[in-house]
């Protein structure tokens, strides 16, 4: 993959202005997606994964706002700012909302949501909904759009698509609805599909089927995916490269093999230890102790120090730099952990935090 990335996100910051204070949901993340790649965005609930994806679509709900950074899709500037005096203002080439709607959403970047039960409009047939989005995003007439919809339904494994075309969403199972949503995304022929935890609401067997389907279709159509999940198992199954998010920041980024076998960040490590792995036999899974702190007042220094099993004094004071640790097969392996920096981590004292407190009085996550 020597091409240019189709999506580049640089130092993206999205904040929510609430009465309690400013929530820094996404706080300066950078990642990219190359053509034909499946890139993972992993983290616990509240890490800012979904806010990151809605920022890419420019669909952040009030009171949220993209306050900084750059998002470039091919040669389009989805988000771009420039300095005007003391303020950051959108640059001229940044697409307007109307341009986002007509030029990007659906036809260039499509999305698949987490809950297939809620993602389809209950009062319209699935055929109607598919056709509507196809007509909106492709230059087809009504008849051709209907045929395309039926073809896509067949493609994603809906039996008897001609008959099912006129069925309502409630007449489909969860797995079938997710297939319909995948058909919807592919039918608009986007180059990038954002999949926001698309298998989380499904049971494991159906999840397996959907992942297989996506892998097949991805090879067939060459579409890139930005795959949001909290499940390291899914990451291992489907992703080429992975970004691990914690509290609005990306803490580690690597190819999937590197991430699993040469883990550089204690948080990634903790995530991996909390799931069963076929290549490791252990007595008990180790959960990540404590809960993610509020993004209104993130902890000082390294944001993970309150729950990190390796945290030391220095971690509470110095903010780690997100930097390249190694390179593997031409791909960088980035992480932000003081262990890899020359700031006196080795001589610093371990600190008492949620990870070392034992289970008493702490909430166990995952």
């Amino acid at each position: 993959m020597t091409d240019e990335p189709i999506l580049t996100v640089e130092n993206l910051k999205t904040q929510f202005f609430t009465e309690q204070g400013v929530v820094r949901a996404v706080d300066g993340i950078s990642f990219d997606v190359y053509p034909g790649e499946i890139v993972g965005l992993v983290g616990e609930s509240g890490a800012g994964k979904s806010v990151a994806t809605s920022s890419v679509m420019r669909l952040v709900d009030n009171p949220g706002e993209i306050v900084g950074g750059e998002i470039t899709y091919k040669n389009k500037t989805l988000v771009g700012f420039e300095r005007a005096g003391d303020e950051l203002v959108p640059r001229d080439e940044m697409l307007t909302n109307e341009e986002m709607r007509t030029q990007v959403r659906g036809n260039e970047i499509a999305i698949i949501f987490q809950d297939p039960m809620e993602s389809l409009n209950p009062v319209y047939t699935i055929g109607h909904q598919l056709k509507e989005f196809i007509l909106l995003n492709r230059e087809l007439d009504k008849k051709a759009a209907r045929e395309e919809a039926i073809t896509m339904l067949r493609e994603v494994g809906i039996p008897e698509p001609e008959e099912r075309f006129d069925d309502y969403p409630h007449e489909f199972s969860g797995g079938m609805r997710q297939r319909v949503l995948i058909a919807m995304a592919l039918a608009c022929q986007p180059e990038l599909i954002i999949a926001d935890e698309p298998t989380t609401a499904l049971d494991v067997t159906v999840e397996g089927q959907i992942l297989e389907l996506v892998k097949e279709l991805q090879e067939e159509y060459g579409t890139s995916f930005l795959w949001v999940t909290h499940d390291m198992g899914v990451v291992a199954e489907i992703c080429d490269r992975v970004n691990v998010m914690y509290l609005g920041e990306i803490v580690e980024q690597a190819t999937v093999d590197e991430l699993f076998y040469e883990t550089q960040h204690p948080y990634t490590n903790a995530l991996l230890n909390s799931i069963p792995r076929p290549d490791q036999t252990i007595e008990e899974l180790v959960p990540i102790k404590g809960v993610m702190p509020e993004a209104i007042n993130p902890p000082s220094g390294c944001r993970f120090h309150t729950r990190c099993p390796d945290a030391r004094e220095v971690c509470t004071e110095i903010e780690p730099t997100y930097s390249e640790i190694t390179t593997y097969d031409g791909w960088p392996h980035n992480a932000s952990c003081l262990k890899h920096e020359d700031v006196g981590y080795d001589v610093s004292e371990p600190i008492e935090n949620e990870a070392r407190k034992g289970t008493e009085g702490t909430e166990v996550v995952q």
Partner: protein
Amino acid sequence: MGILRYTVYRLIQAVPVLFGLSVITFLLANSMPGDPVSIMLAETESDPELVAALEAQYGLDRPLHERYVNYMIGLAQGDLGYSLYYNEPVLTKVAERLPVTIMLVASSFVFAIATAIPLGVIAAKNRNQPSDHASRIVALIGVSTPSFWIGLMLIIIFAYQLGLLPSSGMVYPWHSPDDYRFIDSYLGIGSTQVGGITLPWLEGLYYETARHLILPTLALGTLHMATIMRIERSSMIESLHADYVQLARAYGVSERKIMRKHAFRVSQLPIVTIIGLNLTTALGGAVLIEEVFAINGMGRLIITAIQNLDYQLVLGTTLFFGVVFIIGVIITDISYAYIDPRVSYEEDS
């Protein structure tokens, strides 16, 4: 076929309800103090023989249970009873008055729905902005002000102070010139002028009916407008945040189309329920409004019947309201199957 079977099933279910209603109404009506014959004979020193004769004529000398059975036998034959006060069959009175009440209730619901749905949508769209707060205040006033008081205020302002609209003397569009031959000139129908042009008699009648309906419609419709508006607003807010609306946005559907189609249709489901339920309470509200605006509808008929201890008229009208209520609920249920594809009466029943 499913819907038909369901309807029949629901109607059969309604029979015991109506039976219970008849027993309760019959007992309540008969436990009212006084007796209808002495009211009929008014203040005159009543002749005991005349009283006895009248009581025998109307079956009032029979024991209570016998009178009930007789009434029910008549009812089963389609006879709603005989009004002592009007000296006419109950059915005739109901047939005469029901269209009036239906006209009033229908017009106030057209007003309520036509204003509440757009206002609710606007409030949902501009959530927590001035227009939303304004609609909240209007709704609060609407639900907490008694309809008769609104009616009286409207009369004071628009009828007496400004003299714009009539406060009484309702006319009915199904009437013919004959019905007004004595009061034609008083009402001015036939010489109604709009913009310098004298309207033909029938158009004049329609025009006058509309003018007479405005104030009662506002008085009766305000409460329903307020409740429907609040439900519309919250329902719309909910669907505007639903995943399928987010999905539509993510596929480039315009906000306008989302408002009109994607979010709108789903959010009308609770509106249908609330309209169905409100229609039935509106019948009760119409009783007061008819009294305030001196409209001779079902409401005034019931009040007259109660005041004059006209047992059979009380029974007949109450049962009639009961039937209307039950039919209203069934229609609400059935309309659900048409607008919400998830509701189906195919399997159950």
